[in-house]
């Protein structure tokens, strides 16, 4: 009856134990109730916890990865939260796990980029596993706004092109206004005739 889902990467192994929720008609292959989980790291202490801790881990690591893929390292998980992740002071990524037990100091893990990618992959594999029949309240990845991006262009640089375009229109309009207007009252058909010499002033010799 007890089900174990296991996901392996080079640096970590995630095991999730649980039971099918027979009250909603789940079969023996599925996992609808998480009874425990463990995350084993190569050369680091193993993490264990309840469903709430696993959800807390996913709720900070996956959004952190979402921001990081856009090149924005942002801290997730404030002090009361059991899990916190942010860019490390000397590079890498600092994962801080606060125990719910009193008198237990928080555990700090420093992950490099490869270990973080491994962790994200095992969490992705878990949330997309069809055997996990459990609604996970995870934020959807959404596009970042301009002000959240680090390489934001300064306002003056962004406004330069439209202002230059506007200036070009104003200058062209001003030059257009400087052109002389045609004299009023002259019909268009008369203008070429006016430009020609008068009939009586012909230079051709007159016949006797």
């Amino acid at each position: 009856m007890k089900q174990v889902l296991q996901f392996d990467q080079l640096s970590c192994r995630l095991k999730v134990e649980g039971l099918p929720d027979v009250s909603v008609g789940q079969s023996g292959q599925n996992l609808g109730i998480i009874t425990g989980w463990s995350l084993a790291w190569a050369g680091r202490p193993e993490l264990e916890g309840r469903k709430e801790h696993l959800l807390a881990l996913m709720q900070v690591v996956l959004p952190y990865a979402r921001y990081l893929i856009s090149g924005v390292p942002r801290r997730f998980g404030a002090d009361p939260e059991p899990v916190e992740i942010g860019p490390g002071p000397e590079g890498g990524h600092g994962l801080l796990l606060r125990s719910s037990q009193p008198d237990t100091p928080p555990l700090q893990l420093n992950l490099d980029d490869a270990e973080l990618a491994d962790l994200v992959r095992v969490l992705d594999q878990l949330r997309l596993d069809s055997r996990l029949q459990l609604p996970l309240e995870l934020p959807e990845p959404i596009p970042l706004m301009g002000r959240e991006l680090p390489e934001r262009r300064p306002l003056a640089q962004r406004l330069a092109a439209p202002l230059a375009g506007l200036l070009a229109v104003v200058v062209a309009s001003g030059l257009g206004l400087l052109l002389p207007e045609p004299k009023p009252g002259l019909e268009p058909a008369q203008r070429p005739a006016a430009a020609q010499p008068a009939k009586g002033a012909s230079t051709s010799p007159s016949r006797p």
Partner: protein
Amino acid sequence: MPLDSFAPASAPRLPRRGLERLDLLLLSAEALDLNGGEAMVWMSEQMGFTNLFPNRVELWKRRCTNPLRRNTRREGLEPAETDALIRILCALADRLYPLVRGLLSSAEPSEVLSERWNLFRSRLADLVRQRMNLRRGGVQLLLDPESGARQSRLLIQALALGAGVGGFERLRASLLDAQP
């Protein structure tokens, strides 16, 4: 790959920066794998995208919508086409994950890491010189030793975090980021 995973018609189109990044990420996959171009075509067929990209020329044309390309195409890409390209990229990144991971791991000896990065950067720079418009500022930044190194790391990091089926939504959201 299921065809019903295509984006609906109302889905947003990738902005200019997203098109640039998508093509550069595909170029990075080619720099990691010498047969990356062929793998892309094969992957497209395997994933059932032949109705969108019937042959390699059509696939190539879609990639040429990158404004940084030497021969760029002005028409935009439909959301279904960009989604298909992102899925191909995620599958390629998944296939290349051991190589990508090897570049990012600090457990490797520094000489080995340095050698790997040099090889990747030189291949990427060769591809960029062949295919991109070298007068564009973005391309010059990629070829610059300092900013190019940082850009290369961001590209590899994006491939690592976007690898596999789980990376699709994350990578897609990232490519839809607002213009900086």
